[in-house]
């Protein structure tokens, strides 16, 4: 495994500043700035991480950042690398990685729909799953589904008499 780390360190040093940590014996996570994104991912692909498993968006509300994690997997060695970058919450723009992995077009479209992160260079950022959605992107932390569901989809009122006096409709 250690050979793997040196190989990684050598790639990373080329891509500039990064933080590197090992999660399990076959999984590493790397945090880089969004500027070095394309070069690092391209390098990793040559190093055998040919399979793009997933692009995940995470809404770090309290420090006003979106985190986007690219999960890469290498079929030969069975190792996973999580390449994550931070991007500002107000103007979330990231370069698209469609040239490296064509399938990324759909992952990016999914993340765009649920977080509102714009991937410039991705031709079709049309809505993929939701239809006629007028609210803010639903996966953001400041969107409350329970309130939305209460307003839009009325439900049956139960007059349950077993509730303790203090109890009642939950929050």
């Amino acid at each position, binding site marked *: 495994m250690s050979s793997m780390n040196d190989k990684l360190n050598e790639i990373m040093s080329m891509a500039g500043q990064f933080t590197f940590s090992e999660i399990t014996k076959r999984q590493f996570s790397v945090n880089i700035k969004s500027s070095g994104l394309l070069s690092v991912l391209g390098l990793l692909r040559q190093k055998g991480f040919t399979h793009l498993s997933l692009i995940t968006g995470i809404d770090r509300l309290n420090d006003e950042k979106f985190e986007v994690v690219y999960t890469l997997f290498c079929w030969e060695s069975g190792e996973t690398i999580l390449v994550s970058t931070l991007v500002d919450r107000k103007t979330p723009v990231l370069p698209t990685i469609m040239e490296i992995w064509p399938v990324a077009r759909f992952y990016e479209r999914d993340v765009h729909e649920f977080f509102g992160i714009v991937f410039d260079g991705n031709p079709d950022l049309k809505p993929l799953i939701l239809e006629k959605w007028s609210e803010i992107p639903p996966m953001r932390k400041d969107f409350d589904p329970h309130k939305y569901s209460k307003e*839009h*989809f009325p439900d049956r009122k139960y007059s349950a008499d077993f509730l303790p006096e203090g109890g009642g409709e939950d929050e």
Partner: protein
Amino acid sequence: MNNEQTAWERVANMLRARSLWMLYYCTGCGAIELPPTMTARFDMERFGIGPMATPRQADILLVTGYLSTKTLRRVIYSYEQMQAPKYIVGFGSCTINGGIYYDSYATINRLDLYVPVDLYLAGCMPRPEAIVNGFKNLMDKIDRGEATGWKDYEANYEWYRKNQIDALGEVYIHDEFHE
């Protein structure tokens, strides 16, 4: 409300109950229990209930579990395409009051605000035995002439339409192909 049936209606209901055709449309997670119910082990062909491809020729529309807004639109299309004596069976607690997805922004909580439901089946995904038993109840209900969901859909159509508009914005999509 036991309505007295004319002789002809009673015969018609009896015949109708014996050969219900189920629309083969899996709207939710309960649909995984339909193939075992249709095939060899819990065969519902014995009751004359068989899967049918087109809404035109189907009598029962199964709403199997939760119903997302997008599917609700298609369920309304299919329901309105079906011919008059039509029945809707709601599976599980998701159709009664939202079930496990009570707080989801994409699923409706109460089915009978949008389409008239004739029969509810209990079980978070009812078992094949429960489905067959439910169909037996539906057949008895039809025999007694009480399964008249479709009649009150036509009667208070505006009320249903208003609910549908509230939930969906507008029911019929024009650019179905999302050009």
